[in-house]
């Protein structure tokens, strides 16, 4: 074999010996690519499919209806609300005792009458001496006892979420707050009223008609308070717990009215909102123990929110918090400390450690530039 041919053979052999490695690595890359598509950002497999049971086996185990539990999500229970619920119920004046801080108001304060159940559930209604279906409303199943469970059980898991358009409501509430004894509408009366004590004199319809300061201590989460930090009562604002804030306008003419429950109540789990700055106190900040400004000064997107779904606090750190006279110094200190020991230092002036151990978002650093 001539020398040149030998060289060529050696080259071909050496190429062959290395061909396996790139092929294997290319295969590995393809597997990685495939995996990346199969897993969502939360790390859950999206492509997985559960094994389905054979249809015959499903038919064999037909679920037994539990008539002691009522659910609005049952298809047959989704007629017009007023086909069962009366508004107001006859007991509204008596029921108001449950809310002593509120004046009595006409309300839906009791379960629907027997007719609402019997028209479909006659068989269950008269089944045995103690029909289980009675337990939906009654605490004691006896023809001689009409005691019922509390109609509005706030501890029970909610079946409905509330649909509330902040944008529409924001449009019709107070256009301008005035100082007491100032009734003229001159340029002089267009003053900046940043300090709430003045507005206490006249009750203007602002966000506080629904979101007043909390008067009761917050209930601890099931897992306990993080860092054992118990937020003071003035940390939170409340949201309406009764119909009083709605029926005062939406009673008879202004839609959705009292009989159009579905105008506000939509089937589905209620929206839960997470507090990011657990140590922020709505009604407790500053020397005056009150945050100046109004809600929309910080919640910058609330006036355009048409729904509660996905609603975020949308509080820009600048200028809401970090303006020079308020929290700029604290923010500066915290960021400096974090930058000295990223990952080890926790921002706990405003946050509990579950949030404070994370890398501060860019908005915090940018706020200092403002």
């Amino acid at each position, binding site marked *: 074999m001539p020398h040149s041919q030998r*060289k060529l053979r*050696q*080259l071909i052999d*050496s*190429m062959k010996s*290395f061909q396996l*490695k*790139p092929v294997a*690595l*290319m295969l590995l*890359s393809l597997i*990685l*690519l495939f995996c*990346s*598509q199969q897993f969502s950002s939360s790390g859950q497999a999206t492509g997985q499919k559960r094994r389905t049971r054979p249809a015959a086996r499903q038919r064999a185990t037909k679920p037994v209806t539990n008539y002691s539990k009522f659910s609005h999500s049952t298809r047959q229970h989704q007629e017009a609300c007023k086909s069962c619920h009366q508004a107001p119920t006859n007991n509204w004046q008596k029921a108001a005792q449950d809310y002593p801080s509120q*004046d*009595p*108001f*006409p309300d839906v304060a009791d379960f629907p009458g027997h007719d609402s159940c019997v028209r479909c559930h006659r068989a269950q209604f008269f089944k045995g001496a103690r029909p289980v279906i009675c337990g939906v409303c009654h605490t004691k199943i006896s023809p001689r006892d009409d005691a019922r469970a509390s109609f509005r059980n706030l501890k029970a898991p909610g079946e409905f979420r509330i649909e509330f358009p902040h*944008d529409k409501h924001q*449009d*019709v509430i*107070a*256009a*301008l*707050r*005035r100082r007491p004894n100032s*009734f003229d*509408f*001159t*340029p002089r009366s*267009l003053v*900046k009223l*940043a300090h709430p004590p003045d507005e206490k004199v*006249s*009750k*203007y*319809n602002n966000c506080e008609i629904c979101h007043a300061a909390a008067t009761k201590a917050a209930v601890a989460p099931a897992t306990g308070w993080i860092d054992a930090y118990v937020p003071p009562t003035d940390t939170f604002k409340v949201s309406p717990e009764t119909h009083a804030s709605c029926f*005062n*306008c939406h*009673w*008879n*003419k*202004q839609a959705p009215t009292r009989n159009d429950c579905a105008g506000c109540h939509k089937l589905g789990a209620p929206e839960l909102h997470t507090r990011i700055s657990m140590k922020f106190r709505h009604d407790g900040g500053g020397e005056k123990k009150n945050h100046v*400004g*109004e809600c*929309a*000064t910080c919640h*910058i*997107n609330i*006036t*355009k929110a048409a729904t509660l779904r996905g609603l975020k606090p*949308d509080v*820009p750190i*600048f*200028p809401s918090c970090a303006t020079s006279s308020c929290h700029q110094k604290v923010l500066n200190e915290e960021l400096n400390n974090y930058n000295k020991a990223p990952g080890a230092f926790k921002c706990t002036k405003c946050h509990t450690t579950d949030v404070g151990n994370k890398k501060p978002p860019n908005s915090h650093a*940018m*706020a200092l*530039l*403002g």
Partner: protein
Amino acid sequence: MTRTLARQITWSILGLTLFSSLAVIGPSQTQTPAAADLRGVIRLRVRIGSGEGAKAKGLARKRFFLIKGSLEENKSLMQSIEQQPLLSRDCYYRGLGASEALIHWLRESDCESIYCREVEAKDVEGAGAVREFQEAIAAGEKDFGSRELARKWLTVNLSDQIRDGYYRRRQDELQTLLKHAEQVSKATVLSVMTDLNGTAFFTDLEPGTYVVSNILATEIFGNSASFWNCEVKVKPGDLATEKPFLISNPGNKDPRDVRNIKCRSVDKPLPACPTANANSGN
């Protein structure tokens, strides 16, 4: 030598393969931060003044809109906005035959409807009492058996027109113009309301040219109507920390503002009220 050459070729192929794989995998896992930075914010500030020597003040609780495109691109919309018929709140209620006390009550807090603020005891009794409120309370007392509840729920016993007819009339006009705006700009029109300082934020904006507009004329100082149609450019990465986009009226001579004003309104005097009942059909 040939073995070395072959190795070099192989490692080059290998490196190229891995690089291209990572380039594909990377974006599929997370959104690139650069994409988020391409959005911008407009920090709108609206301040009005009433001439030389007067301090300018923030225009509180007024709705402003952001329309995609330049003034030129939205020319037909701008014409529609400026040609809209003006009817003041006072004239609307006078046209309904409302009492002067009610008109005064609405004017006190620049209210467009009765929902604006709570009707207090002094508004239904004594010299300043509002006749419409008294009638509604009397009806409510019959329904609910409580004068106090009737006062708190007063709006449920007012006629639709008195309660919020002016607001609904303006909303109808607004919806027509918004529809027009979205047709012309081929984009959703965003809206915000100013806070007590006259500040509002438009957030998460695509870079480009926009028009900030109040679309419906805003009554200021009780005697004129202001139209704001101001062009603004949003650059990638504009933040709320940027200087505010200050807009004002021609009357703002406040030296603190003058140099920073980016745009001034076109003001028109409010027309005299039409003859009574001309607008009662609304």
